[in-house]
């Protein structure tokens, strides 16, 4: 089966055979393999470092506690991503009030004046993300992602931030391939509405 091609299967099996408690040996190796991936997903879904840290901690807690029960019926990374997405969504729901408050602050913000225009066909122009105002644009994009529904958010983050294929997303979220594609199309629809004015202002001035 596909389990033989799972790059993490070796270290997962080592963890399952290990009697070590805590973050030692194979557990440490597994943690190092996934820490940034998990934290990144958690950050993009929760939208802030504090919640991302909590969600990441919860994700690894669940992963290590239930590792013995993992039967390689899916890709290990898909299992970890699923736990991370669910933990982040749970945390995001819990801090919904705080999110609403921050959205009010977003709307009051002004796009910085003098932002460079961007022509995607012109390869000589520095990518806008590398510009001085990259941080502010990132914040806008992050906020737009935050405004997506949980389902669309998970699809967007897994697809564009974690570069998962549609099949991997399907496996991770346990939904059909068609649902993955339709959700991604809907996510684009929302992002187009939310971000295009910002991007036009940002790139075209």
């Amino acid at each position: 089966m596909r389990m033989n091609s799972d790059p993490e299967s070796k270290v997962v099996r080592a963890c399952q055979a290990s009697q070590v408690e805590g973050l030692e040996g194979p557990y440490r190796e597994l943690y190092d393999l996934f820490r940034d991936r998990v934290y990144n997903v958690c950050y993009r879904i929760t939208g802030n470092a504090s919640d991302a840290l909590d969600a990441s901690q919860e994700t690894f807690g669940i992963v290590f506690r239930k590792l013995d029960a993992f039967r390689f019926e899916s890709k290990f990374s898909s299992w970890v991503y699923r736990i991370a997405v669910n933990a982040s969504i749970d945390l995001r729901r819990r801090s919904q009030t705080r999110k609403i408050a921050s959205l009010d602050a977003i709307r009051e913000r002004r796009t910085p004046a003098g932002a460079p225009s961007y022509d995607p066909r012109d390869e000589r122009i520095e990518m806008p993300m590398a510009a001085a105002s990259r941080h502010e644009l990132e914040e806008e994009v992050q906020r737009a992602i935050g405004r997506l529904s949980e389902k669309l958010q998970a699809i967007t983050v897994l697809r564009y931030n974690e570069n998962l294929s549609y099949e991997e997303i399907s496996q991770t979220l346990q939904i059909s391939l068609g649902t993955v594609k339709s959700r991604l199309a809907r996510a684009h629809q929302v992002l187009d509405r939310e971000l295009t004015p910002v991007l036009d202002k940002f790139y075209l001035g």
Partner: protein
Amino acid sequence: MNSECRHFQSELADVLAAPDPAAFAGDHAGECAACARWLARQLRLAGVVRELERKTAPPELAGRVVAALEAGARQTRAVRAVQDLRRPRAPETLDRSLAAGFAPAADEALARELARERLGAPPVLERLVVEELAEPEKFRVRRFVGGLPRIDAPAELADLVHARLLAGNAPTRRPRARRWAPGPTRAVWASLAAVVLVAFGLQSLLGILPGGAAGGTAGQPARRPFHVQYTRSLDDLDPVARSLVDGVSGGLLTAREL
């Protein structure tokens, strides 16, 4: 937007996943300017989201994961320990005692067994109850005195006793109080004293009365008859005379009876 446009836009996911989206989009993107702009926006959106900075886990995450794992392990151990606790067994007689409770006369042997299993009152309780019923104040005082702290003799007592012994006149025992015993001589003297006192007492009493003693006429004190009785035993005295003598003698008769 016509049906071709809708069809084109519905295949966005496939277009975006293609290695060359523009080529994958086909002829429609080249013919329809609106769809071409739309595709450009979608590609730009995908690029912007994709270029978001990848966040790296902060160093404190490892510590927090370790702490969470340890807490989970502690919780697991605690649950296991509680599960392993030996459950106290009900006494073997419980079932039978319950049955006997519904039919008390059914099992006398069980009743005796249960009686043996009961905690008994300490033996001292019976004595205390008897004392309380008999002479409560007396035994309460005794128990109170018995509960007083003992006071050690001062150190100089030994020196004092030693000095007395060396002096040779140390009293070996405390002199006993002399008890008043009514011997014959003493009784006679006491009786005489009583009679004299009574006589003098009555005479002086009659002398101050108007009319003298019994049978006095008007203007003379009445002269009262009196009676002289000789007795050898104080017990034979008239109670009135006895009280009088006792009062005159300063309680001598009462002291004798103590």
